[in-house]
């Protein structure tokens, strides 16, 4: 299934029933930040099927280890040690190689290292909250971090975000660009969250919920969570048909 051949087919149209709508008034900020006119549907052109490529040479040694990449003096970040891993696939089930994944998250107490985060939970001097990695030839990725804490946010009077990790993904085309969030299996805040509930379909919410993966824990060190991500698929071009017969 995995092929290194350059793909140039048009992307499948985005499924707007599966994706959140722009206007979701229970998530208050969306009210004034949602287009009111319909989007203009565009056939993929070369501007959309192409996209930037990031080489593995941009990665520093600790970019994929959030427990260590901001830590000082041989210390490490506070919190439940976890490995998050999985594959980036496209809608055809093909692994997406060389996809840049950037992640950011709150610390174990639910506080972000950001001027604008005034939550009273303390900062962890050894936790920066960001990391990145690039998928291998099969679309596989892994990074090490600590489990982020839930945090309150101003929306309703008592809204809390479930524990989550923000993910940014680059596929091979600009039309595959995606930002999403990963939740943790079993978190009772998932069903209560106005941002999660911008997604209508329970199966789609489940797609963003990482599963505890006891087969890939590192004994006496870290538990593992499995999180696969799907980017848009693209049509095979005629050229592909001839060479691969798919």
């Amino acid at each position, binding site marked *: 299934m995995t092929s290194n051949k*350059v793909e*140039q087919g048009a992307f*499948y149209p985005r*499924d707007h029933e*599966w*994706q959140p*709508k*722009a206007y979701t008034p229970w*998530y*208050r900020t*969306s*009210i*004034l*930040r*949602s*287009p*009111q006119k319909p*989007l*203009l*549907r565009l*056939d993929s*052109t*070369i*501007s959309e099927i*192409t*996209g*930037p*490529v990031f080489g593995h040479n941009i990665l*520093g040694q600790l*970019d994929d280890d959030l427990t260590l990449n*901001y830590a000082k003096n041989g210390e490490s970040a506070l919190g439940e040690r976890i490995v998050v891993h999985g594959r980036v696939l496209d*809608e*055809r089930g093909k692994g997406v190689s060389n996809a840049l994944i*950037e*992640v*950011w998250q709150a610390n174990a107490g639910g506080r*972000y290292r*950001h*001027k*604008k985060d005034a939550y009273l939970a303390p900062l962890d001097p050894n936790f*920066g*909250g*960001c990391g*990145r990695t690039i998928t291998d030839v099969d679309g596989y990725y892994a990074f090490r971090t600590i489990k982020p804490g839930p945090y309150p946010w101003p929306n309703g009077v008592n809204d809390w975000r479930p524990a989550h990790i*923000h993910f*940014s993904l680059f596929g*091979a*085309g600009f*039309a595959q*660009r*995606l*930002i*999403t969030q990963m939740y943790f299996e079993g978190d009772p805040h998932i069903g209560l969250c106005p*941002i*999660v509930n*911008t997604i209508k379909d329970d199966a*789609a919410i489940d*797609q963003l919920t990482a599963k505890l993966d006891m087969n890939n824990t590192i004994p006496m060190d870290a538990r593992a969570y499995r999180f696969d991500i*799907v*980017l848009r698929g693209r049509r095979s071009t005629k050229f592909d048909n001839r060479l691969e017969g798919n």
Partner: protein
Amino acid sequence: MHELDPLKESPSQTAGPYVHIGCMPNSIGNHGIFEEDLGARMVNEDTKGERITVRGRIYDGTGTALKDAMIEIWQADSNGLFNSPSDTRGEADPNFAGWGRQPVEPETGEFVFETIKPASVPAPRGRTQAPHISFWIVARGINVGLNTRMYFPEEEAANAADPVLGSIEHRSRVATLIANREGSTYTFDIHIQGENETVFLDI
């Protein structure tokens, strides 16, 4: 015949107010993890083409500029080639990645890209697209990143023949995709809602 495709695209979620932490940590003073924020510099002294500045603001439904957005742009080089393996027409300028990423300024909401003017690129069925820059906007309150394009006001003939601009049904809205020019500076304001709502694209 294709098999039915087995998977659905992962749902998008808002980038939230803290997107800088992951994508542009140095821009908010979180130094020491990544040497430089990706996409912060688009041109170097060897980049070919006409230097331009692209600036603007993103306005919400009350006309207030967003202060927490992140913008990415993607464009062809001065010969109309994309620096991407999916563009097999020729080798793009190695000194121009064609991709940029900037936060809006946290006090004023202004974004600024220093780049070059792209050449025109092909469109399906033998047509030509006028020079343009693709935009992708994420922020708190935006559930799925917004795609749009900026076109150049001096390219009147090319814009008139552009298939994307040509497919905009309400002709008065074409102007929302065309920047204002002053010398080498182009101003491209984006209106998420309201009377002047920008044409957003389902790409």
